[in-house]
Protein backbone atom coordinates (compact mmCIF):
# COMPACT_ATOMS: atom_id res chain seq x y z
CA UNK A 1 0.00 0.00 0.00
CA UNK A 2 1.42 3.36 -1.04
CA UNK A 3 1.87 5.77 1.85
CA UNK A 4 2.36 9.51 2.19
CA UNK A 5 3.06 11.26 5.50
CA UNK A 6 2.59 7.86 7.13
CA UNK A 7 -0.95 7.69 5.83
CA UNK A 8 -2.27 5.23 3.26
CA UNK A 9 -3.07 6.62 -0.15
CA UNK A 10 -6.69 5.63 -0.72
CA UNK A 11 -7.28 7.23 -4.12
CA UNK A 12 -4.54 8.39 -6.45
CA UNK A 13 -5.43 10.18 -9.67
CA UNK A 14 -2.56 10.74 -12.08
CA UNK A 15 -2.48 12.68 -15.35
CA UNK A 16 -6.18 12.17 -15.91
CA UNK A 17 -7.65 13.77 -19.02
CA UNK A 18 -11.16 13.55 -20.38
CA UNK A 19 -12.83 15.12 -23.38
CA UNK A 20 -16.19 14.81 -25.11
CA UNK A 21 -16.27 15.22 -28.90
CA UNK A 22 -13.00 17.19 -28.97
CA UNK A 23 -14.19 19.37 -26.09
CA UNK A 24 -11.55 19.00 -23.38
CA UNK A 25 -13.15 18.89 -19.94
CA UNK A 26 -10.26 17.71 -17.76
CA UNK A 27 -6.55 17.94 -18.50
CA UNK A 28 -3.73 16.35 -16.51
CA UNK A 29 -5.53 16.07 -13.20
CA UNK A 30 -3.32 14.86 -10.34
CA UNK A 31 -4.29 14.46 -6.69
CA UNK A 32 -4.33 12.01 -3.83
CA UNK A 33 -6.84 11.19 -1.14
CA UNK A 34 -5.24 9.93 2.04
CA UNK A 35 -6.71 7.70 4.71
CA UNK A 36 -8.87 9.65 7.14
CA UNK A 37 -8.80 12.72 4.90
CA UNK A 38 -11.76 14.75 3.76
CA UNK A 39 -11.15 16.39 0.42
CA UNK A 40 -13.41 19.05 -1.08
CA UNK A 41 -13.43 19.75 -4.81
CA UNK A 42 -14.68 23.17 -5.79
CA UNK A 43 -15.03 24.87 -9.13
CA UNK A 44 -17.48 26.75 -11.26
CA UNK A 45 -20.51 24.99 -12.73
CA UNK A 46 -19.45 23.02 -15.78
CA UNK A 47 -15.80 22.91 -14.74
CA UNK A 48 -15.79 19.10 -14.81
CA UNK A 49 -16.07 18.22 -11.11
CA UNK A 50 -18.82 15.65 -11.63
CA UNK A 51 -17.01 14.30 -14.69
CA UNK A 52 -13.97 13.73 -12.48
CA UNK A 53 -16.09 11.85 -9.94
CA UNK A 54 -17.65 9.72 -12.69
CA UNK A 55 -14.18 8.86 -13.94
CA UNK A 56 -13.14 7.81 -10.45
CA UNK A 57 -16.11 5.45 -10.04
CA UNK A 58 -15.74 4.03 -13.53
CA UNK A 59 -18.93 5.38 -15.11
CA UNK A 60 -16.79 7.32 -17.57
CA UNK A 61 -13.54 6.10 -19.06
CA UNK A 62 -10.70 8.64 -19.02
CA UNK A 63 -8.94 9.39 -22.31
CA UNK A 64 -5.65 8.99 -20.53
CA UNK A 65 -4.27 8.79 -17.04
CA UNK A 66 -4.55 6.50 -14.08
CA UNK A 67 -6.95 6.10 -11.16
CA UNK A 68 -5.79 3.88 -8.33
CA UNK A 69 -8.20 3.00 -5.54
CA UNK A 70 -6.80 0.98 -2.64
CA UNK A 71 -3.81 -0.02 -4.77
CA UNK A 72 -6.00 -1.26 -7.62
CA UNK A 73 -5.85 0.45 -11.00
CA UNK A 74 -9.44 1.27 -11.98
CA UNK A 75 -8.83 2.17 -15.62
CA UNK A 76 -9.41 -0.88 -17.82
CA UNK A 77 -10.13 -3.04 -14.78
CA UNK A 78 -12.43 -6.00 -15.67
CA UNK A 79 -16.02 -5.26 -14.88
CA UNK A 80 -16.49 -7.84 -12.12
CA UNK A 81 -13.41 -6.58 -10.24
CA UNK A 82 -14.51 -2.99 -10.69
CA UNK A 83 -17.91 -3.86 -9.22
CA UNK A 84 -16.24 -5.54 -6.24
CA UNK A 85 -14.12 -2.48 -5.66
CA UNK A 86 -17.14 -0.17 -5.89
CA UNK A 87 -18.85 -2.09 -3.09
CA UNK A 88 -16.38 -0.47 -0.68
CA UNK A 89 -17.46 2.98 -1.81
CA UNK A 90 -20.43 5.05 -0.73
CA UNK A 91 -21.52 7.36 -3.52
CA UNK A 92 -24.16 10.05 -3.86
CA UNK A 93 -25.03 11.51 -7.22
CA UNK A 94 -25.74 15.15 -7.93
CA UNK A 95 -29.49 14.63 -8.25
CA UNK A 96 -29.82 11.79 -5.77
CA UNK A 97 -30.43 9.04 -8.36
CA UNK A 98 -32.87 7.24 -6.07
CA UNK A 99 -34.77 4.35 -7.64
CA UNK A 100 -38.31 5.57 -8.33
CA UNK A 101 -39.80 2.09 -8.22
CA UNK A 102 -38.48 1.31 -4.73
CA UNK A 103 -39.59 2.67 -1.38
CA UNK A 104 -37.14 4.85 0.50
CA UNK A 105 -36.13 2.10 2.92
CA UNK A 106 -35.50 -0.25 0.01
CA UNK A 107 -33.35 2.42 -1.62
CA UNK A 108 -31.32 2.89 1.56
CA UNK A 109 -30.52 -0.79 2.10
CA UNK A 110 -30.17 -1.64 -1.61
CA UNK A 111 -26.47 -2.45 -1.50
CA UNK A 112 -26.64 -4.28 1.84
CA UNK A 113 -29.61 -6.34 0.61
CA UNK A 114 -27.59 -7.33 -2.44
CA UNK A 115 -24.69 -8.50 -0.33
CA UNK A 116 -26.56 -10.42 2.38
CA UNK A 117 -30.00 -11.93 2.97
CA UNK A 118 -32.07 -9.45 4.88
CA UNK A 119 -35.80 -9.55 5.60
CA UNK A 120 -38.13 -6.57 5.40
CA UNK A 121 -38.18 -5.99 9.16
CA UNK A 122 -34.41 -6.01 9.45
CA UNK A 123 -34.14 -3.84 6.35
CA UNK A 124 -36.50 -1.22 7.72
CA UNK A 125 -34.72 -1.23 11.08
CA UNK A 126 -31.38 -0.73 9.38
CA UNK A 127 -32.77 2.09 7.25
CA UNK A 128 -34.35 3.67 10.33
CA UNK A 129 -31.06 3.60 12.24
CA UNK A 130 -29.46 5.58 9.42
CA UNK A 131 -32.15 8.15 8.74
CA UNK A 132 -32.26 9.02 12.44
CA UNK A 133 -28.81 10.57 12.05
CA UNK A 134 -30.02 12.62 9.11
CA UNK A 135 -32.99 14.21 10.84
CA UNK A 136 -35.57 12.35 8.80
CA UNK A 137 -38.90 11.09 10.12
CA UNK A 138 -39.50 7.29 10.14
CA UNK A 139 -42.72 7.78 8.16
CA UNK A 140 -40.76 8.54 5.00
CA UNK A 141 -39.37 5.00 4.94
CA UNK A 142 -42.55 3.55 3.47
CA UNK A 143 -42.96 6.33 0.92
CA UNK A 144 -41.52 6.41 -2.59
CA UNK A 145 -38.84 9.00 -3.49
CA UNK A 146 -41.37 10.93 -5.59
CA UNK A 147 -43.54 11.38 -2.48
CA UNK A 148 -40.93 13.30 -0.48
CA UNK A 149 -39.32 16.70 -0.99
CA UNK A 150 -36.08 17.27 -2.92
CA UNK A 151 -34.16 17.94 0.30
CA UNK A 152 -35.43 14.71 1.83
CA UNK A 153 -34.50 12.81 -1.34
CA UNK A 154 -30.98 14.18 -1.00
CA UNK A 155 -30.78 12.91 2.56
CA UNK A 156 -32.14 9.49 1.58
CA UNK A 157 -29.43 9.35 -1.10
CA UNK A 158 -26.83 10.15 1.56
CA UNK A 159 -28.34 7.46 3.79
CA UNK A 160 -27.95 4.99 0.91
CA UNK A 161 -24.32 6.02 0.48
CA UNK A 162 -23.38 5.59 4.14
CA UNK A 163 -25.37 2.39 4.70
CA UNK A 164 -22.91 -0.40 5.48
CA UNK A 165 -20.24 2.08 6.68
CA UNK A 166 -18.12 2.22 3.52
CA UNK A 167 -14.59 3.49 4.08
CA UNK A 168 -14.53 5.69 1.00
CA UNK A 169 -17.28 8.24 0.57
CA UNK A 170 -17.85 10.25 -2.59
CA UNK A 171 -20.46 13.00 -2.47
CA UNK A 172 -21.56 15.08 -5.43
CA UNK A 173 -23.06 18.30 -4.07
CA UNK A 174 -24.58 16.73 -0.95
CA UNK A 175 -25.89 19.98 0.52
CA UNK A 176 -27.22 21.72 -2.58
CA UNK A 177 -30.92 22.42 -2.25
CA UNK A 178 -30.89 21.92 1.51
CA UNK A 179 -31.68 24.52 4.15
CA UNK A 180 -28.65 25.74 6.20
CA UNK A 181 -29.61 23.71 9.27
CA UNK A 182 -29.93 20.44 7.33
CA UNK A 183 -26.84 21.31 5.30
CA UNK A 184 -24.89 21.73 8.51
CA UNK A 185 -26.28 18.39 9.75
CA UNK A 186 -25.08 16.66 6.58
CA UNK A 187 -21.64 18.25 6.96
CA UNK A 188 -21.46 17.00 10.52
CA UNK A 189 -22.44 13.55 9.32
CA UNK A 190 -19.72 13.52 6.66
CA UNK A 191 -17.17 14.58 9.27
CA UNK A 192 -18.36 11.93 11.69
CA UNK A 193 -18.37 9.25 8.99
CA UNK A 194 -14.78 10.07 8.11
CA UNK A 195 -13.62 10.18 11.75
CA UNK A 196 -15.50 7.25 13.28
CA UNK A 197 -15.06 4.75 10.48
CA UNK A 198 -11.56 5.97 9.73
CA UNK A 199 -12.77 6.59 6.25
CA UNK A 200 -11.92 9.10 3.58
CA UNK A 201 -14.23 11.36 1.64
CA UNK A 202 -14.32 13.40 -1.53
CA UNK A 203 -17.03 16.04 -1.60
CA UNK A 204 -17.88 18.11 -4.62
CA UNK A 205 -19.54 21.29 -3.54
CA UNK A 206 -20.21 24.94 -4.29
CA UNK A 207 -21.06 25.61 -0.67
CA UNK A 208 -18.01 27.33 0.82
CA UNK A 209 -19.42 27.19 4.34
CA UNK A 210 -19.64 23.45 3.88
CA UNK A 211 -16.04 23.33 2.61
CA UNK A 212 -14.86 25.09 5.77
CA UNK A 213 -16.77 22.65 7.96
CA UNK A 214 -15.79 19.35 6.37
CA UNK A 215 -12.60 19.66 4.38
CA UNK A 216 -9.02 18.93 5.40
CA UNK A 217 -7.89 19.76 1.89
CA UNK A 218 -9.45 21.75 -0.95
CA UNK A 219 -8.91 21.43 -4.69
CA UNK A 220 -10.05 24.04 -7.17
CA UNK A 221 -10.75 22.94 -10.72
CA UNK A 222 -10.55 25.76 -13.20
CA UNK A 223 -9.86 25.81 -16.93
CA UNK A 224 -9.84 22.00 -17.15
CA UNK A 225 -7.12 21.54 -14.56
CA UNK A 226 -6.38 21.79 -10.84
CA UNK A 227 -5.46 25.43 -10.39
CA UNK A 228 -5.18 25.54 -6.61
CA UNK A 229 -4.72 23.11 -3.70
CA UNK A 230 -4.61 23.89 0.00
CA UNK A 231 -6.39 23.76 3.33
CA UNK A 232 -9.59 25.74 4.01
CA UNK A 233 -7.57 28.19 6.14
CA UNK A 234 -5.04 28.71 3.37
CA UNK A 235 -7.93 29.40 1.06
CA UNK A 236 -8.70 32.62 2.90
CA UNK A 237 -5.15 33.88 2.53
CA UNK A 238 -4.82 32.81 -1.06
CA UNK A 239 -4.05 35.33 -3.78
CA UNK A 240 -5.54 33.05 -6.43
CA UNK A 241 -8.14 35.13 -8.23
CA UNK A 242 -10.62 32.32 -8.65
CA UNK A 243 -10.34 31.32 -4.99
CA UNK A 244 -10.97 34.91 -3.99
CA UNK A 245 -14.08 34.96 -6.14
CA UNK A 246 -15.30 31.84 -4.37
CA UNK A 247 -14.71 33.08 -0.83
CA UNK A 248 -15.87 36.63 -1.45
CA UNK A 249 -19.51 35.98 -0.51
CA UNK A 250 -18.69 34.55 2.90
CA UNK A 251 -17.16 36.02 5.97
CA UNK A 252 -14.27 33.86 7.01
CA UNK A 253 -14.48 35.00 10.62
CA UNK A 254 -17.76 33.18 11.06
CA UNK A 255 -16.03 29.88 10.46
CA UNK A 256 -12.63 30.36 12.04
CA UNK A 257 -13.30 32.38 15.13
Amino acid at each position, binding site marked *: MEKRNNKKVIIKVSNLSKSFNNNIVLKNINFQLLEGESLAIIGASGSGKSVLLKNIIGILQPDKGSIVINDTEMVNLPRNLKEKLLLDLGIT*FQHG*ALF*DSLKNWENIIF*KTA*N*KEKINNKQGKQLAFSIIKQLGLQPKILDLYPSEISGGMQKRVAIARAICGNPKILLFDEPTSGLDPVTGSLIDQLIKTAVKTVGGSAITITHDMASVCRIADKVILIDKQTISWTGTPKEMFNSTNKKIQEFIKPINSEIFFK
Partner: protein
Amino acid sequence: MLNFFLEFLGATGKKFINFVANIGHFFIFFGSAIYWVFKPPWYLKKIFQQIIDIGYFSLPVVGLTTFFSGMVLALQTYNGFTDFNSETTVARIVLTSITRELGPVLTGLMVAGRIGAKMAAEIATMRVTEQIDALGTLGTRPMQYLIAPKIIASLICIPLLVLIGNTIGILGGYVIAIYKLNFNPSLYLYATMEYLQLIDIIQGTVKAAIFGLIISMVSCYFGYNASKGAEGVGFATTSSVVISSVMILTSTYIITALFFG
Protein backbone atom coordinates in the same frame (compact mmCIF):
# COMPACT_ATOMS: atom_id res chain seq x y z
CA MET B 1 -21.59 23.56 -56.63
CA LEU B 2 -18.82 21.04 -56.03
CA ASN B 3 -18.63 22.10 -52.39
CA PHE B 4 -22.36 21.60 -51.98
CA PHE B 5 -22.10 18.15 -53.53
CA LEU B 6 -19.20 17.21 -51.26
CA GLU B 7 -21.06 18.48 -48.20
CA PHE B 8 -24.11 16.47 -49.22
CA LEU B 9 -21.98 13.35 -49.69
CA GLY B 10 -20.27 13.92 -46.35
CA ALA B 11 -23.55 14.36 -44.49
CA THR B 12 -25.10 11.31 -46.15
CA GLY B 13 -22.00 9.22 -45.43
CA LYS B 14 -21.98 10.31 -41.80
CA LYS B 15 -25.65 9.36 -41.41
CA PHE B 16 -25.05 6.00 -43.05
CA ILE B 17 -22.06 5.25 -40.80
CA ASN B 18 -24.14 6.25 -37.76
CA PHE B 19 -26.93 3.98 -38.93
CA VAL B 20 -24.60 1.01 -39.35
CA ALA B 21 -22.94 1.76 -36.00
CA ASN B 22 -26.36 1.84 -34.31
CA ILE B 23 -27.27 -1.52 -35.81
CA GLY B 24 -23.99 -2.96 -34.54
CA HIS B 25 -24.61 -1.38 -31.16
CA PHE B 26 -28.09 -2.91 -31.08
CA PHE B 27 -26.76 -6.40 -31.79
CA ILE B 28 -24.14 -6.06 -29.05
CA PHE B 29 -26.95 -5.03 -26.69
CA PHE B 30 -29.07 -7.94 -27.95
CA GLY B 31 -26.28 -10.47 -27.30
CA SER B 32 -25.57 -9.07 -23.86
CA ALA B 33 -29.28 -9.08 -22.94
CA ILE B 34 -29.70 -12.71 -24.04
CA TYR B 35 -26.66 -13.66 -21.96
CA TRP B 36 -28.21 -12.05 -18.87
CA VAL B 37 -31.56 -13.73 -19.52
CA PHE B 38 -29.90 -17.11 -19.00
CA LYS B 39 -27.43 -16.07 -16.29
CA PRO B 40 -28.50 -16.64 -12.67
CA PRO B 41 -29.43 -15.23 -10.24
CA TRP B 42 -32.79 -14.16 -11.62
CA TYR B 43 -34.67 -11.37 -9.93
CA LEU B 44 -37.91 -13.32 -9.49
CA LYS B 45 -39.77 -10.47 -7.79
CA LYS B 46 -38.96 -8.17 -10.70
CA ILE B 47 -39.97 -10.84 -13.24
CA PHE B 48 -43.27 -11.37 -11.43
CA GLN B 49 -43.95 -7.61 -11.35
CA GLN B 50 -43.30 -7.45 -15.09
CA ILE B 51 -45.58 -10.44 -15.76
CA ILE B 52 -48.40 -8.66 -13.95
CA ASP B 53 -47.69 -5.44 -15.83
CA ILE B 54 -47.25 -6.91 -19.29
CA GLY B 55 -49.68 -9.82 -19.06
CA TYR B 56 -52.46 -8.97 -16.65
CA PHE B 57 -52.77 -5.25 -17.33
CA SER B 58 -52.63 -5.72 -21.11
CA LEU B 59 -55.57 -8.13 -21.07
CA PRO B 60 -58.33 -5.48 -21.39
CA VAL B 61 -56.78 -3.72 -24.38
CA VAL B 62 -55.86 -7.00 -26.12
CA GLY B 63 -59.28 -8.48 -25.35
CA LEU B 64 -61.17 -5.46 -26.70
CA THR B 65 -59.05 -5.22 -29.84
CA THR B 66 -59.32 -8.88 -30.78
CA PHE B 67 -63.00 -9.11 -29.85
CA PHE B 68 -63.95 -6.26 -32.16
CA SER B 69 -61.60 -7.53 -34.88
CA GLY B 70 -63.38 -10.89 -34.75
CA MET B 71 -66.72 -9.12 -35.01
CA VAL B 72 -65.66 -6.97 -37.96
CA LEU B 73 -64.13 -9.97 -39.70
CA ALA B 74 -67.35 -11.98 -39.37
CA LEU B 75 -69.42 -9.10 -40.75
CA GLN B 76 -67.11 -8.33 -43.66
CA THR B 77 -66.70 -11.97 -44.61
CA TYR B 78 -70.44 -12.51 -44.53
CA ASN B 79 -70.98 -9.56 -46.86
CA GLY B 80 -68.59 -11.07 -49.37
CA PHE B 81 -69.80 -14.65 -49.08
CA THR B 82 -73.58 -14.35 -48.74
CA ASP B 83 -74.19 -16.49 -51.82
CA PHE B 84 -72.08 -19.39 -50.62
CA ASN B 85 -72.23 -21.76 -47.72
CA SER B 86 -71.68 -18.87 -45.31
CA GLU B 87 -71.62 -20.66 -41.95
CA THR B 88 -68.62 -22.71 -42.91
CA THR B 89 -66.80 -19.97 -44.81
CA VAL B 90 -67.27 -17.22 -42.20
CA ALA B 91 -66.21 -19.52 -39.36
CA ARG B 92 -63.18 -20.69 -41.29
CA ILE B 93 -62.04 -17.22 -42.32
CA VAL B 94 -62.52 -15.78 -38.85
CA LEU B 95 -60.62 -18.68 -37.33
CA THR B 96 -57.73 -18.67 -39.79
CA SER B 97 -57.33 -14.89 -39.89
CA ILE B 98 -57.41 -14.54 -36.14
CA THR B 99 -55.10 -17.42 -35.24
CA ARG B 100 -52.59 -16.89 -38.02
CA GLU B 101 -52.39 -13.10 -38.33
CA LEU B 102 -54.75 -10.77 -36.56
CA GLY B 103 -54.42 -12.25 -33.08
CA PRO B 104 -50.61 -12.15 -32.91
CA VAL B 105 -50.17 -8.92 -34.90
CA LEU B 106 -52.86 -6.91 -33.10
CA THR B 107 -51.67 -8.17 -29.73
CA GLY B 108 -48.09 -7.33 -30.69
CA LEU B 109 -49.00 -3.82 -31.81
CA MET B 110 -51.14 -3.15 -28.74
CA VAL B 111 -48.42 -4.38 -26.40
CA ALA B 112 -45.78 -2.40 -28.32
CA GLY B 113 -47.87 0.74 -27.79
CA ARG B 114 -48.67 0.08 -24.17
CA ILE B 115 -45.73 -1.83 -22.74
CA GLY B 116 -42.97 -0.94 -25.21
CA ALA B 117 -43.52 2.77 -24.62
CA LYS B 118 -43.62 2.22 -20.87
CA MET B 119 -40.43 0.16 -20.82
CA ALA B 120 -38.56 2.67 -22.96
CA ALA B 121 -39.77 5.66 -20.92
CA GLU B 122 -38.98 3.97 -17.60
CA ILE B 123 -35.46 2.92 -18.56
CA ALA B 124 -34.73 6.19 -20.37
CA THR B 125 -35.80 8.17 -17.30
CA MET B 126 -33.56 5.99 -15.16
CA ARG B 127 -30.72 6.66 -17.59
CA VAL B 128 -31.08 10.45 -17.67
CA THR B 129 -31.55 10.69 -13.89
CA GLU B 130 -28.37 8.64 -13.28
CA GLN B 131 -30.32 5.77 -11.67
CA ILE B 132 -28.67 3.27 -14.02
CA ASP B 133 -25.25 4.66 -13.11
CA ALA B 134 -26.19 4.35 -9.45
CA LEU B 135 -27.25 0.71 -9.94
CA GLY B 136 -23.79 -0.10 -11.25
CA THR B 137 -22.17 1.41 -8.17
CA LEU B 138 -24.39 -0.56 -5.79
CA GLY B 139 -23.24 -4.02 -6.76
CA THR B 140 -26.00 -4.64 -9.30
CA ARG B 141 -25.69 -5.16 -13.03
CA PRO B 142 -28.27 -3.01 -14.81
CA MET B 143 -28.66 -5.56 -17.64
CA GLN B 144 -29.45 -8.31 -15.17
CA TYR B 145 -31.63 -6.25 -12.85
CA LEU B 146 -33.48 -4.05 -15.33
CA ILE B 147 -33.42 -5.60 -18.78
CA ALA B 148 -33.46 -9.39 -18.28
CA PRO B 149 -36.71 -9.45 -16.21
CA LYS B 150 -38.49 -7.43 -18.90
CA ILE B 151 -37.36 -9.80 -21.67
CA ILE B 152 -38.23 -12.94 -19.69
CA ALA B 153 -41.67 -11.57 -18.79
CA SER B 154 -42.35 -10.52 -22.40
CA LEU B 155 -41.41 -13.98 -23.68
CA ILE B 156 -43.81 -15.58 -21.19
CA CYS B 157 -46.69 -13.11 -21.42
CA ILE B 158 -47.08 -12.21 -25.06
CA PRO B 159 -47.65 -15.81 -26.30
CA LEU B 160 -50.22 -16.24 -23.51
CA LEU B 161 -51.86 -12.94 -24.44
CA VAL B 162 -52.04 -14.08 -28.06
CA LEU B 163 -53.70 -17.37 -27.09
CA ILE B 164 -56.26 -15.47 -25.00
CA GLY B 165 -56.67 -12.84 -27.73
CA ASN B 166 -57.27 -15.56 -30.32
CA THR B 167 -60.00 -17.11 -28.20
CA ILE B 168 -61.66 -13.74 -27.62
CA GLY B 169 -61.39 -12.85 -31.33
CA ILE B 170 -63.05 -16.10 -32.36
CA LEU B 171 -65.71 -15.43 -29.74
CA GLY B 172 -66.28 -11.98 -31.28
CA GLY B 173 -66.88 -13.61 -34.69
CA TYR B 174 -69.21 -16.13 -33.06
CA VAL B 175 -71.26 -13.43 -31.33
CA ILE B 176 -71.85 -11.55 -34.61
CA ALA B 177 -72.47 -14.73 -36.59
CA ILE B 178 -75.07 -16.02 -34.15
CA TYR B 179 -76.79 -12.89 -32.85
CA LYS B 180 -76.63 -10.61 -35.89
CA LEU B 181 -76.30 -12.88 -38.89
CA ASN B 182 -78.55 -15.58 -37.44
CA PHE B 183 -76.22 -18.50 -38.14
CA ASN B 184 -76.85 -21.86 -36.60
CA PRO B 185 -74.67 -21.97 -33.42
CA SER B 186 -73.94 -25.70 -33.68
CA LEU B 187 -72.97 -25.50 -37.32
CA TYR B 188 -70.78 -22.47 -36.72
CA LEU B 189 -69.00 -24.08 -33.79
CA TYR B 190 -68.62 -27.35 -35.68
CA ALA B 191 -67.04 -25.51 -38.61
CA THR B 192 -64.72 -23.62 -36.26
CA MET B 193 -63.54 -26.81 -34.57
CA GLU B 194 -63.20 -28.64 -37.85
CA TYR B 195 -60.83 -26.06 -39.30
CA LEU B 196 -58.85 -25.48 -36.13
CA GLN B 197 -55.31 -26.69 -36.85
CA LEU B 198 -52.41 -27.16 -34.50
CA ILE B 199 -49.99 -25.55 -36.98
CA ASP B 200 -51.97 -22.29 -36.83
CA ILE B 201 -51.75 -22.22 -33.04
CA ILE B 202 -48.03 -23.05 -33.14
CA GLN B 203 -47.33 -20.42 -35.77
CA GLY B 204 -49.28 -17.79 -33.82
CA THR B 205 -47.41 -18.66 -30.64
CA VAL B 206 -44.01 -18.55 -32.36
CA LYS B 207 -44.90 -15.16 -33.80
CA ALA B 208 -45.98 -13.96 -30.38
CA ALA B 209 -42.71 -15.06 -28.79
CA ILE B 210 -40.72 -13.28 -31.51
CA PHE B 211 -42.86 -10.16 -31.10
CA GLY B 212 -42.23 -10.32 -27.36
CA LEU B 213 -38.51 -10.41 -28.01
CA ILE B 214 -38.73 -7.55 -30.51
CA ILE B 215 -40.82 -5.31 -28.25
CA SER B 216 -38.72 -5.85 -25.13
CA MET B 217 -35.35 -5.65 -26.90
CA VAL B 218 -36.14 -2.56 -28.97
CA SER B 219 -37.76 -0.72 -26.07
CA CYS B 220 -35.00 -1.57 -23.61
CA TYR B 221 -32.34 -0.65 -26.18
CA PHE B 222 -33.75 2.81 -26.84
CA GLY B 223 -34.40 3.40 -23.15
CA TYR B 224 -30.97 2.20 -22.10
CA ASN B 225 -29.18 4.42 -24.60
CA ALA B 226 -31.28 7.53 -24.05
CA SER B 227 -29.60 10.89 -23.55
CA LYS B 228 -30.36 14.60 -23.44
CA GLY B 229 -32.91 14.72 -20.60
CA ALA B 230 -36.63 14.90 -21.26
CA GLU B 231 -36.10 15.16 -25.01
CA GLY B 232 -34.13 11.93 -24.94
CA VAL B 233 -36.89 10.17 -23.03
CA GLY B 234 -39.42 11.31 -25.64
CA PHE B 235 -37.19 10.18 -28.48
CA ALA B 236 -36.62 6.77 -26.87
CA THR B 237 -40.34 6.25 -26.33
CA THR B 238 -41.39 7.24 -29.84
CA SER B 239 -38.58 5.31 -31.51
CA SER B 240 -39.30 2.16 -29.54
CA VAL B 241 -42.98 2.13 -30.51
CA VAL B 242 -42.38 2.98 -34.17
CA ILE B 243 -39.51 0.55 -34.68
CA SER B 244 -41.17 -2.28 -32.72
CA SER B 245 -44.34 -1.85 -34.81
CA VAL B 246 -42.45 -1.84 -38.10
CA MET B 247 -40.41 -4.87 -37.04
CA ILE B 248 -43.58 -6.73 -35.97
CA LEU B 249 -45.20 -6.14 -39.37
CA THR B 250 -42.03 -7.11 -41.21
CA SER B 251 -41.32 -10.22 -39.17
CA THR B 252 -44.91 -11.47 -39.40
CA TYR B 253 -44.46 -11.75 -43.17
CA ILE B 254 -41.16 -13.60 -42.79
CA ILE B 255 -42.58 -16.06 -40.25
CA THR B 256 -45.70 -16.66 -42.35
CA ALA B 257 -43.53 -17.27 -45.41
CA LEU B 258 -41.42 -19.74 -43.41
CA PHE B 259 -44.45 -21.67 -42.14
CA PHE B 260 -46.73 -21.55 -45.16
CA GLY B 261 -44.56 -20.26 -47.99
